[in-house]
Each structure stands twice: as C-alpha cells, then as structure tokens.
C-alpha cells in the first residue's frame, strides 16, 4: 500500500488537481482580503460559469475557447452585478455583517436551486472524454491535463501577485484591504477596489471551473462543497494572505488524496468537514510556519 | 497596600511600543491625574488595567490579585470600573436599563437561576433598581430614567456613563476624559461625584486635558509621553516642570 510509485502518483495527481482548488481559494481569499466579505456568492458564480460553458461547449458545440469566453463573461458580469447592486447597496445602508452574510449565503443557494431546476442533477462535464494524453515519467503517469492545469494556475497566480505588487491598481487593492477609510482619504475609491477584487476573482473562478469541468463532473450542488474547500484553505493560510490560501489549497488537496490510503471510502466525503473543524479548533488564525521557513517565504 | 499596582508593564502592537516599562500605583481614597498629549498611551494604560489588552511583559495587581490572566469581565466583577473617551451608553436601552447593566453581579445573567431562585433574583433586581434610582437622584437626573440616551444632552449622557460605573460599586474607578465637552451644572456635579467617591475610599484615576480639573481634584499626577511614564509627583510639581512643558507644549510656555 505504501510503495513509492503509488505514493508518487498520488502525490503528483494531488498536486495537479489542486490546480482548481488553488484558483478557487485565491478567488475567495482575494475578496475576503480586499472587501472583508465572506463571498459565498462565489459558489453561485462557479455554478453559473460552469453551466454557461457547458451549454456553449456541449449543447451548442462551440469551440472551447468561445465556450470559455462565455463562461468568463458570465462570471465577470454576475460578480460585478452582485457587488454593485448587492454588497454595495447593503454596505451603503450600514447593514450589519449579519445581513451581508444572509445575502451571500441565500443568493448562492438561490442560484444553486435555479441551476438544479434548469439542468437537473445529472453530472456533467465540459469535454466528451476526460481522458487526455498520458506521458510516463519515472513511473508516474502525467497527463496533458495535469500540465496545462499547472501551467495555467502558476501563470495566473504569478500574474496576480505581480499585479498586486507592481501596478497602481493592485496597490490600491492592498491599501483598501488594509484600511478602507484611510485609503479613501487618499483619493482611492473603496467601491472601485471592491469591484475590481470581485472581477479578478471572477476570472480565477472561470479558470478554475474550466479546469474542474474538463477533469471531473459537476452537479448544481457541487460548488458549495468546492467552496468549503476554498474557505478552509483561506482560513488555514491565514486570513489576509492570498499566497497562504494558495499553498493551503495544495496542502489540503494532498491531504485529501493521501487519505485514500488510510480511511475507508465511505468516510471520504466527510473528510473535508472534519478538516474544517480541526482548522477552526486549532488553526483559526492560520497555520504558523516555523520562523525560519517564514523568513524564506516572506513577502505578500 | 495600594489598590492597583502596575509593575513593569510593556505592550507593543506590531512595531509600535504603546506602553514601555510602566510603573504606577493607585491608592484608595486618592484621585490620580493621568496627563499627557494624545497618543501618549493613557487610554492604552486603561485598556491594560481593565483587560482589553494583555501586557507583553509585566503584571498588574488589584490588591493582591494578579490581573493579567483574567478576562475583562472578571476584572470588572472584581471591582474595576471604567468610562470611555467616547460615551458608550447602550443606545437602544433606556437610561435606567443602562444603569441596571452596571452591577458587578447582574441578577438576570444566568438563564436558569431565574427559574430556580426566582425569589432571590427578584429581590436582587429590586435592590439594583433602587440603587440605580438613588444614583440618578444623586447626579441630579431623577427624571431621565426612562429616556433613551440619545434624547439627552451630551453632558447628561456623560454623567449617566459615570453613574453606570458607580453601579459597579468597586474599588477602582478609571475615568477616561470625563470632563471633555462637559460644562455648567454637569461639570459641577461630576466634580462633586468624583470627589465623593474618592472620599468614600475608592481609588480614582482620571485622564484629563483640563488643567483646572486636575488642579482642583487631583492630589497626585502622572505625566505620560510616547508610552512612557515621564514624571510623577504632586500636581504642582508636574505643572511647574520644564520637562513637561517642553514635551507637552514643545517649549517653555
């Protein structure tokens, strides 16, 4: 059960499939950091983007690029609308965080029911066959999907970090994340920052959903569970740390895959929730690396 | 034995030291003035004593009880009562209800004590109400009991805030700028109340910018600057000090 080739395979596959988890986690962590909102609507956006892509690619036989573009457009438009007509309105009314939570959760649920009504509960994927070309490297099967997923994820993550670090708009996001009212005094519009954060999240969501849909199958209630993964990763990585969330997502994916070796399959579904409780109990402020490792990975 | 002893207390937030090597004593029956420019760490010190922040080093003693491991509500139940720079009366509760939240042991707090000891609880509640009305009479606002705090003028709200701390009936009163923005009758009343409380044996510490208040009421004073205790002594000594003038006003007045 524990021989090396199997472990390597599990490890590799876990890292590869962590790609979409990383994208979802980054999306969630970003909106939480900048807008201080637990954006559960992301689950709804994930669902809508997926089914838009599915309609385009499978039902209407569009080329993949066009289908992806549609899903991306849907994600961006919905996210922007939720921010502009939802969160912003509630914020302007000085609504309590209770109200914002209720709004986010309920909207996500509404979208989930809508999608169930429209598309049923049959699992759907974005490609006719999820098998892609395999290469054997040192006994480990590496698929083209794996490579593409990793490439896309790494590229997008780096692009985001560069954006946040080096562009004016990116730095505005940090400023608002740090201290919204203060940033406003310096002429930075907090509302624009919130909108920008939501839109960027939407892009990551679209990419994540595309990767997920080309490897696994989706049902309308899946996004909420996938979201939970992103939430756990965000908490474990430390609220406010986007790269923390990304790393935590990889770690959790490895944990999930490795768990096959030790727990019976019936309990696999409960694992995520169990991890959630462990995280809340023992790591609510994030997992603290030992000091020397922190120095190496320093820099937001 | 002093009522409150702050011993070698040190506190920092991130890279900013807000309290450095603080040593301070509060005695029963005295009114200690805490003065210093904004940002000197006076409110931080109150937060450390009342428990909102925990010191990084050092200890705070209430009599012979070490406070640092105790949460805020425990310290209040031991008799540490404070007011705030900004009035923090509960806006949706009436004045009398605000006061009724003040006693150290709130009769209605435990859910089931109400069911099992109804008689005792009712008696305690009645007693608290009597005390609250008496305090309202003492501060000259007997008719404000059923009003909402927002309906009262600023000075009266501050008096009610003070009154609420009196409901605690504790040994330590920490008053954060009680006189700021208060004038006329409310000012007089507040002065008198603070004097009376000290005379009754409580240890009172007052943060104030109002020099005449400090002069009239405080016997001792402590000058803080940048998180440190720069000087302590009698009020006259401090007010005559050149060092204080320089730090406070940026040069001899």
């Amino acid at each position, binding site marked *: 059960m524990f021989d090396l080739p199997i472990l390597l395979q599990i490890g590799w596959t876990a890292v590869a499939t962590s790609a979409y988890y990383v994208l979802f986690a980054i999306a969630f962590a970003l909106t939480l950091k900048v807008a201080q909102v*637990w954006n559960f609507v992301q689950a709804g956006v994930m669902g809508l983007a997926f089914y838009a892509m599915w309609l385009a690619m499978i039902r209407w036989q569009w080329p993949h690029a066009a289908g992806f573009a549609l899903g991306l457009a849907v994600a961006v438009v919905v996210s922007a609308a939720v921010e502009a007509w939802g969160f912003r*309105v*509630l914020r302007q009314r*000085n*609504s*309590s*965080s*209770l*109200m914002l*939570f*209720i709004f986010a*959760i*309920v909207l996500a*649920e*509404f979208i*989930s*029911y809508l999608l*169930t*009504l429209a598309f049923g509960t049959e699992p759907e994927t974005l490609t006719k066959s999820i098998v892609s070309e395999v290469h054997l490297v040192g006994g480990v099967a590496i698929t083209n999907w794996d490579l593409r997923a990793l490439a896309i994820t790494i590229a997008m993550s780096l692009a985001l970090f560069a954006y946040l670090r080096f562009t004016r708009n990116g730095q505005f996001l940090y400023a608002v994340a740090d201290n919204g009212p203060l940033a406003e005094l310096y002429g930075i519009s907090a509302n624009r920052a919130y909108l920008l954060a939501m839109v960027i999240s939407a892009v990551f969501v679209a990419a994540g959903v595309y990767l997920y849909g080309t490897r696994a199958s989706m049902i309308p209630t899946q996004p*909420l*569970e996938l979201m*939970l993964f992103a939430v756990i990763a965000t*908490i474990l990585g430390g609220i406010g740390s986007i790269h923390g969330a990304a790393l935590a997502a990889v770690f959790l994916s490895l944990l999930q895959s490795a768990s096959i070796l030790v727990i019976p399959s*019936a*309990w696999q*579904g*409960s694992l*995520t*929730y169990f991890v*959630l*409780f462990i995280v*809340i109990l023992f790591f*609510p*402020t994030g997992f603290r690396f030992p000091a020397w490792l922190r120095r190496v990975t320093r820099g937001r | 034995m002093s009522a409150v002893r702050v011993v070698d207390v040190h506190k920092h937030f991130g890279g900013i030291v807000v309290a450095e090597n603080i040593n301070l004593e509060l005695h029963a029956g005295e009114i200690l003035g805490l003065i210093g420019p904004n940002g000197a760490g006076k409110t931080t010190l109150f937060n450390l004593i*009342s428990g*909102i922040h925990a010191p990084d080093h050092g200890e705070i003693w209430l009599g012979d009880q070490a406070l640092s491991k105790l*949460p*805020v*509500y425990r310290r*209040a*139940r031991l008799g540490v009562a*404070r007011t*705030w720079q900004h009035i*923090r009366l509960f*806006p*949706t*509760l009436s004045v009398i209800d605000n006061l*009724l*939240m003040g*006693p*150290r*042991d*709130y009769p*209605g*707090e435990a*859910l089931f004590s*109400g069911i099992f000891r109804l008689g005792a*609880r009712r008696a305690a*509640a009645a007693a608290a109400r009597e005390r609250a009305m008496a305090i309202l009479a003492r501060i000259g606002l007997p008719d404000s009991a059923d009003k909402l705090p927002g309906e009262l003028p600023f000075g009266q709200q501050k008096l009610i805030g003070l009154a609420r701390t009196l409901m*605690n009936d504790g040994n330590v009163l920490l008053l954060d700028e009680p006189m700021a923005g208060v004038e006329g009758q409310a000012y007089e009343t507040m002065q008198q109340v603070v004097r009376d409380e000290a005379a009754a044996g409580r240890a009172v510490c007052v943060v104030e910018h109002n020099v005449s208040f400090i002069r009239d009421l405080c016997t001792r004073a402590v000058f803080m600057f940048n998180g440190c205790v720069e000087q302590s002594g009698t009020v006259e000594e401090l007010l005559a000090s050149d060092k204080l003038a320089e730090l406070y006003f940026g040069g001899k007045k």
Partner: protein
Amino acid sequence: MEYILSVLILIGIYTILASSFNLIIGFGGLISVAHPIFFALGAYASGLANLHFGVPIPAAIMLGSLFAALMSVALSLPSLRVSGDYLLIASIGFQLGFLEVIKNIEFAGGAGGLSNIASMYAGPYRSLAFAITILVIAALVVALVHWLTHGDYGRAIQAMRDDEECFTSLGRNPMAIKITIFAFGSGLAGLAGALYAHYFQYLTPEQFGIVQSSLILTMVVVGGMGTTIGPVVGALLLTALPQAITFLNLPSSVMAPLQGMLYTSLVLVFLFTRPAGLFGKPVRQ
C-alpha cells in the same frame, strides 16, 4: 380532515423551529445554517432511544432535545471562541458534514433512513391528539422565548448586541450568553425534531438538508427578526405556501428546487425592500 391536521402539525413544528431560530439569529445575532441538523439530532436521538433502548417516548423526547442542545455546544464553543464569522462557516460544515455522517451510520438507518419509529399516540384520533399536543407545545415555546427575550435576560442580550466590548467591561460574559442562547435554541429545535419523529415515524437525511435551512431562515426573515410574533406568522405563511404548490402536482425533481428558489427569493426581496420583515421594527443601524 387528516390532511388539515397534518398541515396543522407541520405548522406547529415549524413554529417551534422558527421561533427557536429567531432566538439564535434575531435576538442573539448569531448566524448559523445548521438549525436543521439539531432538528435532525433531536429526531434521531429520540427515535433511536425509544427504538433500540426502549426509553418511553416522553423521556425520549426530552433526551432528544437535550442531545441536540449538548451537540450545539460542540459547534458554538470552538467557533465563537474565534469570532461570530467562524460560527457561520463552522455551521455550514456542520450542516453539510453531519448529513454525511448520518448517511454512514447503519445504526441510524444510514442513507435509507430510520423507520418504524414508535408513534406517540395510537388509535383513530391519533392525528388530532398530536395536533393539539404540538400546537400547545408550540404556544408554550413561543411564550418561553418571549419571556426570555424581554426582562432581565433580554436586556442583557440587547446590551450585548449594542456594544459587546462595553458589555464585557461592565462585568458581563458575552460568550456564556451566546452559547446558552445557541444551546437553548438548538435544544428547542431538537424538541421539534423528536415530536416530528414520533408523528411521521420515518426519518431520512434528505429531510434535514440545506433546503430546510433556507426555509427556516425565510420564515424568520419574512416574519421579522427579533420579534416574537414574526416567526409564528412566518411559519404559518411558509408552511401553507408549499402546500399550495403541492397542488400543482409537479414531479419532485422540480418541486424541491422550486421551493428552494421560492424561499430564497423571498429572503432576497425582503432583505432589500423590507429588512425588518413583516412585523419587525425598522432595522437598528
């Protein structure tokens, strides 16, 4: 007649659920989506205690309620130690996760469900007896919640909602109050569950899913959070409404999501047009 009685019984059960949830979210300000789970825990615990351990039904019901209350502490204590936000997240995990757990426990009937639970009353007037019992209990629960939220304890809850830091500085312990409210509310949900189990005699995990959560939340939001009468009216309206939809004779695959959409869209509409609900006072800023 039978049909009307079972609707009345449902109204009674949902009144208890909505009222207890209102205590938690409307008065206590604690947001959780796991209320159906405590409903489930009470139902299963009571059913199993009676079925497998021969505990007489009234005692089993008490047990179910107590069990739900105790389990709620397992959720609220670690979460609230961190913050209220965490309670929401943990409750989502609890709600989704516990159903998984129940599905895997054969002792509780697994995914197929628990059946043959004993009925509280027997005989031709069973439903009538049940209806009267539940409506009386529901009225008592509403009265109890009202008594709790007005008077000394209610004053403390209100002060805590107004300014928690100041509240603690007066010597009050907000954690104790929050956990107590949560346990009390969840225990009442468990009570409703136990009553439900001994009437309908059949439990499956599906009955306690996220749609239930949306439904209960809708009842409270539409009725008016933080009021006594709000959840009662909400329960009445929203138990009657789905019944009206049943008459459309739609397939169940359409029914469930349609109901879900109805509840959630009601909440959204009220959230933006009338956040205080039908009977609430204008929302405190």
